[in-house]
């Protein structure tokens, strides 16, 4: 089955339960939005999917195209086709975007195969243009001294270059003004297609005006309390998260 699936996932950090029995399926080719209030565990889910070492999975399964992700190191997950756009991307001092991405792409090639430099740069420049980034950006160190908007664009640039099977975008809209938001959304939309599944994590409905999801899930206190078509986001916007909580099939701890 070509999907990213999470089944009855339980996650703790420092003995505190953050994700509590979460089940979710993102088939390849679809865009799923995951909405929820602060502290509901959205970002934790993203980090667990990517394999962050600080979180402990106490129960449940995470599969990508039938393969158990939880057994893989973060870099193995990435090379097999999982991408995460970070809410707070790290700086990598002294390493240029061009060199960083090149190393990342190179890591996906079989041993002994070298990335063709001219093809690489042609693709890089094409994707940068798509995201309205100046070419001089390639020689800047990754995220070093970047504005919030520049960081988010750089995340999407990496997404475009690495061509994953599944992308988890963690609060990619936070800290963006409307123009930057549109550019980022344009970038993501241009990558949509049958080969990419997207999990779009956001706090606000606003982003979903520009990246229209196929499905919307609402996460509260560590699990999904409602799922529906894109209209659910609008309803949620109107009625608020309390409404979502009330509608939960089973009681949800606050």
């Amino acid at each position, binding site marked *: 089955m070509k999907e990213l699936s999470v089944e009855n996932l339980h996650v703790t950090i420092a003995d505190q339960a953050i994700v509590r029995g979460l089940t979710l399926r993102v088939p390849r080719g679809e865009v799923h939005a995951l909405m929820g209030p602060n502290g509901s565990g959205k970002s934790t889910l993203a980090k667990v999917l990517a*394999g962050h070492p600080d979180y402990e999975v106490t129960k449940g399964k995470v599969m990508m195209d039938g393969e158990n992700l939880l057994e893989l*190191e*973060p*870099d193995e997950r990435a090379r097999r086709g999982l991408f995460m756009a970070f809410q707070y991307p790290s700086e990598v*001092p*002294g*390493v240029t975007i061009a060199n960083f*991405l090149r190393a*990342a792409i190179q*890591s996906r090639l079989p041993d002994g195969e070298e990335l063709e430099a001219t093809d690489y740069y042609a693709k890089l420049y094409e994707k940068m243009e798509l995201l309205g980034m100046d070419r001089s950006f390639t020689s800047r160190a990754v995220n070093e001294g970047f504005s919030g908007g520049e960081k988010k664009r750089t995340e999407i640039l990496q997404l475009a270059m690495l061509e994953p099977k599944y992308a988890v975008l963690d609060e990619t809209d936070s800290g963006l003004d409307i123009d930057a938001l549109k550019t980022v959304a344009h970038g993501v939309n241009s990558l949509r297609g049958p080969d990419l599944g997207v999990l779009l994590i956001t706090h606000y409905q606003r982003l979903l005006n520009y990246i229209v999801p196929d499905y919307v899930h609402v996460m509260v206190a560590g699990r999904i309390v409602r799922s529906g078509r894109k209209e659910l986001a609008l309803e949620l916007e109107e009625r608020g998260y309390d409404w979502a909580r009330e509608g939960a099939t089973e009681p949800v701890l606050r």
Partner: protein
Amino acid sequence: MKTETSAVNINRNIGDFFYPEAHVRDAGAGLSEKTIQYISDVKEDPDWVREFRLRGLKTFLEKPLPTHWASKDLEAIDFDKIRYYLAPGTAAKRSWDEVPEDIKRTFERLGIPEQERKFLAGVEAQFDSEAVYSNIKKAVGEQGVIFVGSTEGLKNHPEIFRKWFSKVIPVGDNKFSALNSAVFSGGSFIYVPPGVKVKHPLQAYFRINAENFGQFERTLIIADEGSEVTYMEGCTAPKFNTPTLHSAVVELVALKGAKIQYITVQNWASNVFNLVTKRGLAQENAEVKWIDCNIGSRLTMKYPSVIMKGRKARGEVLSIALANDGQHQDTGAKMIHAADETTSNIISKSISIGKGRATYRGLVHVPKHLKNCKNNTECDALLINATSRTDTYPAITVRGTGNAVQHEASVSQVSAEQIFYMQQRGLTEAQAMSLSVNGFVNDLVRQFPMEYSVELKRLIELEMEGSVG
């Protein structure tokens, strides 16, 4: 790992081999006047050199080890067990075909003849105590450039050699400069005539092959007025069970308007004590630049210095040190301002991995009577593991009102979040670490000649691969 031919072989393992010893000349173990007489006899030293050596010995014996500030590890050197002179007993050859087969094979394995053909203006190859090969490209020689071993230099060019020899670094500068003065052998003598700009680098390669041995090369480079020269040195040794000693003295003299760039990539095996004194003298408007990379050795103590003696002279030290488990890189720089409008720049970056220790010692001296002198010092340390160690000891004396000094120091760590971020893009933990370290030294490495920067990056990758996981 692919085998690469490159400017300097700093692959950690590439130097770890040796051939059976076939030395005809052997001063035996231990150091006494007899040792000195033996060395002087077989080298057929002129009397003044013999006397110089004896003075060196006396000073060496009188001086204590610098224990009050230096590593206690120095006490592990057993001066009685070291052999101070080992040589095949033949003069340096001008053609690789004439070099004895085993020795030639050693240097071929290290890629030296190939690099020579590719991009060097001249090469000297030292095997244990003596140069076995020394050659300069014809066109460079025809410009009057002299590039020979120190033994040949003092015999065939005494008028230039004697004038500057031991003038920049006196015998008694420190215990190890005295030791070198007593038993020195090998190293390069270079003279560049006025106005001659040597386009390609001259390279020396120092190879230790024998066990229980000390290598004491002595290099003297004189760039006459308005001339320019770049000198590069590389080194390797096999890893023996007993400590090996390498104690060189390097003196540079840049006359009015001359420029000397001296590049070192030190990749000794991790049992080598590397105790080296390096100093340059810059006359009016001259420039001395040290590029100093310390990757290997057990303990390195080395502080390249520049004495800016003439107006507008410039001194620069760019250094990178990488200290892994069992290594202590005790390095730094000294800038002695001795004329008006002199400027100096020190950029030092160190990386400590595992239980490795990197120490920076810097001395900047600007006396009161000088005007418009400037120094810039930047010294950054990167710690990889919680057990890694770094120390910084800057000593800056700037007197007077018309002088400026700027000092910046930082200590940073590669954060777990940064590694996770990079892993999420597909890099293994070791690749992520290695890229981070390369990023840390990147702005400095960019100032190095191409061939060196490529090799350095590769070496850092190798070091990181072994240290993570």
